[in-house]
């Protein structure tokens, strides 16, 4: 039996994982704050741990956690070698 799919089948594949970087030394890491309460405290701790391992870090911030990041924010974090984003509060 033939049916009309409610799905957009083009969106249903899975993307492969990006290559693992292995070593953090010398890497530039974006810490993306999505503005959830206390997310900054979490990122402060991650920041310290990354720096201990030789990475440099910078912060980026979404306007609000419940909406997609603005193109400028995506571009900003896209310039990093790695991105750390925390969810929820």
């Amino acid at each position, binding site marked *: 039996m*033939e049916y*009309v799919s*409610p*799905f957009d089948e083009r*969106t249903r*594949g899975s993307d492969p994982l990006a290559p693992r970087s292995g070593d953090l030394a010398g890497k530039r890491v974006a810490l993306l704050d999505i503005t959830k309460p206390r997310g900054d405290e979490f990122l402060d701790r991650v920041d310290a741990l990354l720096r201990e391992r030789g990475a440099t870090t910078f912060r980026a911030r979404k306007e609000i956690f*419940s*909406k997609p990041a603005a193109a400028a924010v995506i571009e900003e974090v896209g310039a990093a070698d790695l991105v750390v984003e925390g969810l929820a509060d």
Partner: protein
Amino acid sequence: MTASTSRSSDLAPDFELTSTGSGATRLTDLRASGPAILVFVSEECPTSTLALRRLAPVATGLVESGIVVMPIFEDAPEIAARVARRTGWPGPVLSEPPPYETSRAYRLESLPTTVLVDRDGRIVSTVVGWDRDDLNALLAAATALVDAPAPSLTDEPPLRKPGCGAKNSYDPETIATLSSGGTDELEEMFERGWTDGLPVVPPTPERVAAMLGGRDPGASVGAVPPGMGEATLERVAACAVLAGCKPAYFPVVLAAVEAALDPAFNLNGQAVTTQSAGQLVIVNGPIRDAIGLNSGMGVLGPGWRANMTIGRALRLVVTLTGEGAPGRLDRSALGQPGKLGFCIAEDEESSPWESLHVERGFARDASVVTLVASDAPTSISDHQSRTPEDLAWVLGWGAASSWSANWWPLGATSLYVICPEHAALFAQAGWTKDDVRQAMFEAVRRPARELRRGETTSLVQASDPDAIVTKWTSPAEIMLIAAGGEAGRFSALLGPCLGMANQVVSRPVDWTP
């Protein structure tokens, strides 16, 4: 035993087949990124599904090593997608329709047949049937081509199992018999995942065409969060069919989807939040009576096809086209019954006030949908107030613990459904909607020191202990509509969805009587 391994330097015939992931796919596309393992299978063959189930656990690792693993079904795309789901296959699959030219080009006699093709397009190894040791050897040969460790297939029995006849070798009458189906189509909808957990109406091309009513099936309403599937009219119509809508409801469904996809509504946030809120559809105007939408007794509950199925159609668009299935991208901790679908009409005829769509700037005779991000309703009983002040106080304080007991102010829309008897009491006193809103706003206030337990707002935390805090930021956060049964002094509060920076959104329904 039909399993065997052969080695050959034959070139693998190229093909172009339909993918469940990204449209047409050629062998040259597949091997552009590395060696390719082609697994020829079919729905009816138990050895094929065994092979897919057992290859699935190692497929992701192979893909991460740069090896393409691609099942090729001698079945229609829908069937291929269904079997792939059932077997837990982690990626897209290809579909080869009759007359099975690709299978013929590979001279397949039996399925499954697994073929390893190297980067240059040469066939390195072929395994027919399920043979765990031979397939392990094929996987080792594949991983050796990319210097990756070889995975190991499960050693659960059976270690060897003969395959089934390949369809390309069947006679035309047998092929016609096989493709006639015979499955229970209601059960098939569950197997496909085309459901919200309740039975659905299968979206046959005939039903979808009737729902579309001559509209362009390929026209798009927009991308549906969170998965950003494109809501073509055909897919929206398929959801309306699945939900049980009549074609006469479709203009309302379309307007609801348009409103939901307005960025100001922030469906993206609502679709994935841990909160319980769903999308409430409120309908105003003459289309209510034309399609039998209920605005009276039992308005917030079941019993009316138009109410139940229009709300459900919108939710299916979010859940299926938008991939926002509960427990997957939808992370709602509790959910709520309204997320199955929630559509009501305003009782404009018995309301003493301007109806919602007129308040929002539409003509009185326009048909309009208004979408509200809304939590489940809570009914508020008041059979004893005899003054509008008392009634506004009772209804207002009904919202005091909305969201959380000490979360003041809400900073988001609270929707009240005012029953006819409550509306009449306000009307007899000459109170407008603004009068009611203002009285409710002023009634619900407490000193900050009483609001400092557990979850509370930054405003309360920063306030002087004796400072007065209101439940709403302003009266404008209180939305009122008239609906419900003529007897029984119960109104209802529908709490907000917070943190969404969203707005209530209205869209006119493209409909003429």
